[in-house]
């Protein structure tokens, strides 16, 4: 250890800790951080704001438009307001974080009124505020522009109590339309003088990378370079805070976290920036026995001495494993990420390496590469001892501690198995969604690049679809089989054949993967003709469901919701088929004959190739 180094207490680490899941981190987050900044002599975390420049430019222009910022709690609405204010401030008044509304004279002579939280205004004042908003947006008041922040749920509240003039009503409807329609974050009103930014429509994985960069590149880390614990020695492991920071800076780990966040968005779970900051802070600072379960600099020597460094594993912290279960469940980001089941899900191969790898010569190379190579969080002595006790112990040995460590190891492997080994190691079997990787890289990202998805992938989805549509273990994958049960709609097996729809383009028929029109996610669109089609948006859950069915799983091993979603799609296709038939007048004109097509069995290749057509003469 170089002699001139000593133990440093970094104010930056204490500051970062405030962003983590500590009990005080509840309300008025931005306000509290601001006051802590004043005291702490720490440079703030500067996450690059996607829309800041264009918003500031708007208010500096000769004809600025009013702006509504909306989004869920923690999306950074107040932060935006403050940043915009500070850029426009000039000689004007300073930002007052206490005031609900405040005004600033713009260079062009107009007055900018910032309403930091519309939902905090109540009663008569609320009515006046809403009327003022309507006046400004409808251009009845010309010397004023507005910057309004409001949670998306609360933006529409209070308007119904206004019995104002016609323009109040049209402004309200305009805001509502912009709020509910479309998935783009920035939407411009055509009728009135305002734009709406829905910050919940910015995807978490992009915000995450920005937040991560802001934290990892923060100048506050410089202090650590003169800390005696930063680098380890032969006798002593390095500081876990620094170690975690270094690991989080690795491209592979960033990619895997970012993939999980993107998949969560595609599953319909949006994570605002505040949650992402909690995630980063907890990943770096989490430790199960530290105070509030987040490490401070002054605790580090003791933790090192106790040899409990493995409990600071960033791979566990990502999922909030350092927290109590109760605490963890209250924090959205951990609830969302834990849906992937990383740590609980596993494959025999991975578990064999983790448990038998030390002794089995066939597995030992993997063991060396995956466990022994990481003395910090992999081949930690507690794990090695637990493993030995597990293998050698009798029935009375308490295994719960080792099983928890095993889960931690699986979580570590999820973030450390390199891409090149992912297929061989069946990396995604460590999650609930075995086909998440394919969904993300071979479907979603391919579609975003405006390329075509591989035919085999479509074929497999079609096979899954056919199995659910017919209730039979069919192998058909070059056409979609439309069939009905002939009785009640909940019947599992559908024997009455209606139509084949070709997957390859044929007479206007086709089935293909494309981006869903109203959401940025893949969808399977099925065309019965040029005019008749239906689209099934595929979130990750539905995709996994279809593929697993295609691979031989049974439908009722999944949630009923997935099944109902697919059946709703079938109903829509049948409706489209009926419409097409009406237009083609394909119904038989002869009334004395009735033809019924039944799928009585699969052929020897497992195909529904040839339904039996039964003709019944009615007289």
């Amino acid at each position, binding site marked *: 250890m170089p002699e001139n180094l000593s133990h440093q207490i970094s104010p930056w680490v204490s500051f970062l800790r405030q962003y983590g899941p500590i009990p005080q981190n509840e309300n008025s987050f931005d306000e509290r951080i601001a006051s802590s900044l004043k005291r702490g002599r720490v440079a703030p975390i500067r996450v690059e704001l996607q829309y800041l420049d264009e918003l500031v430019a708007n208010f500096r222009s000769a004809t600025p438009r009013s702006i509504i910022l909306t989004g869920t709690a923690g999306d950074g609405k107040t932060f935006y307001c403050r940043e915009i204010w500070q850029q426009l401030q000039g000689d004007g008044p300073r930002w007052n974080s206490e005031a609900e509304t405040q005004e600033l004279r713009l260079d062009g002579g107009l007055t900018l009124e910032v309403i930091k939280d519309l939902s905090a205004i109540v009663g008569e004042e609320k009515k006046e505020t809403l009327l003022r908003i309507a006046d400004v947006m409808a251009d009845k008041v010309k010397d004023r522009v507005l910057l309004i922040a409001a949670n998306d749920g609360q933006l529409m509240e209070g308007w119904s109590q206004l019995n104002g003039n016609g323009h109040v009503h049209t402004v309200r409807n305009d805001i509502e339309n912009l709020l509910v329609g479309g998935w783009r974050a920035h939407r411009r009103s055509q009728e009135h003088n305002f734009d709406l930014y829905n910050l919940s429509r910015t995807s978490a994985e992009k915000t995450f990378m920005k937040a991560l960069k802001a934290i990892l590149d923060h100048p506050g880390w410089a202090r650590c370079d003169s800390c005696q614990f930063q680098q380890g020695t032969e006798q002593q492991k390095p500081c876990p805070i620094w170690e975690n920071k270094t690991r989080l800076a690795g491209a592979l780990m960033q990619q895997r976290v970012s993939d999980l966040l993107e998949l969560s968005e595609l599953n319909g779970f949006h994570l605002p920036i505040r949650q992402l900051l909690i995630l980063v802070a907890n990943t770096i600072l989490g430790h199960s026995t530290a105070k509030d379960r987040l490490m401070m600099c002054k605790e580090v020597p003791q933790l090192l001495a106790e040899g409990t460094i493995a409990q600071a594993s960033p791979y566990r912290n990502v999922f909030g494993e350092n927290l109590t279960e109760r605490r963890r469940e209250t924090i959205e980001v951990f609830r969302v990420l834990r849906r992937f089941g990383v740590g609980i899900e596993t494959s025999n191969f991975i578990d064999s390496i983790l448990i038998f790898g030390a002794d089995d010569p066939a597995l030992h190379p993997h063991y060396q590469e995956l466990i022994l190579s990481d003395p910090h969080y992999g081949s930690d002595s507690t794990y090695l001892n637990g493993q030995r006790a597990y293998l050698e112990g009798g029935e009375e040995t308490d295994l719960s501690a080792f099983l928890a460590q095993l889960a931690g190891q699986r979580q570590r492997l999820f973030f450390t198995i390199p891409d090149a080994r992912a297929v061989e190691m069946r990396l995604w079997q460590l999650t609930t969604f075995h086909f998440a990787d394919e969904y993300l890289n071979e479907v979603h990202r391919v579609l975003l690049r405006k390329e075509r998805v591989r035919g085999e992938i479509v074929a497999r989805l079609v096979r899954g679809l056919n199995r659910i549509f017919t209730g039979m273990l069919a192998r058909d994958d070059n056409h979609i089989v439309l069939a009905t049960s002939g009785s009640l709609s909940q019947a599992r097996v559908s024997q009455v054949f209606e139509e084949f729809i070709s997957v390859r383009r044929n007479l206007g028929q086709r089935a293909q993967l494309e981006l869903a029109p109203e959401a940025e996610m893949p969808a399977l669109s099925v065309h019965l003709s040029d005019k008749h089609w239906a689209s099934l948006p595929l979130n990750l859950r539905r995709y996994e469901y279809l593929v697993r069915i295609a691979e031989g799983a049974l439908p009722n091993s999944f949630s009923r919701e997935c099944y109902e979603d697919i059946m709703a799609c079938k109903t829509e296709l049948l409706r489209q088929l009926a419409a097409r038939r009406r237009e083609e007048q394909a119904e038989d004109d002869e009334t004395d004959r009735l033809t019924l097509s039944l799928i009585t069995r699969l052929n020897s290749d497992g195909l529904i190739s040839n339904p039996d057509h*039964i003709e019944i003469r*009615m007289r």
Partner: protein
Amino acid sequence: MNRLPFPTVIEPDIWVDEAIWGHRLYDEQTPWMTVLEFLGILQSEMEDGRALREETLNTLKYRPNRRLHLRNILFNNPHLEAVLEQFPNDDEAQWQTWLQQMRATKGGPEERDFSYLRQRFSSFKGFAALVQFLQASAIEGDSNKRWTSKFVFPYGPHCLYEDLDANGKTNDRRFFGRTGELLYRVLAANVHDFGAELCIAPKMMTMTERI
């Protein structure tokens, strides 16, 4: 309103039940059986031109269909598969054997001639496939009830008939325990509230859920 006399013979809680519901609410009748019984009554009354109309109280009199030919073909017909296996690819022999066996089977109509079916189907195989399909989609089709208590899915009026005893002679009220009749009467009593053009379906659904 008339009050029922206080019970002297039966237990009081049964008496309360009966005072409220009459003696016709049979609590073990499944929703499907209730609906089918109800539809049968509705069909019968419709044919007589008085659906859901009861001019004077307690005069409901109906005669649901029995449809014994249909029921024999669908549910009293254990011969189909054997015949198909015995004479593969011989349509003539299949028809002959089956018709003969049906003639010998007991139960249902006196006249056991099913030969009219031959004119309706181009092959015995197709006929058999249709019968098997209707069997598979029958109401509570996997139960092992007697054949006279099995019901085809109510595709239309020709699919409605009443529950009968094992000989196909009389309604012994084993599965049609009059709960469907009660449903019919509740609806008939409320018919003016709904207006003449009834939207029966949703009301019926809630009724059957309660039952």
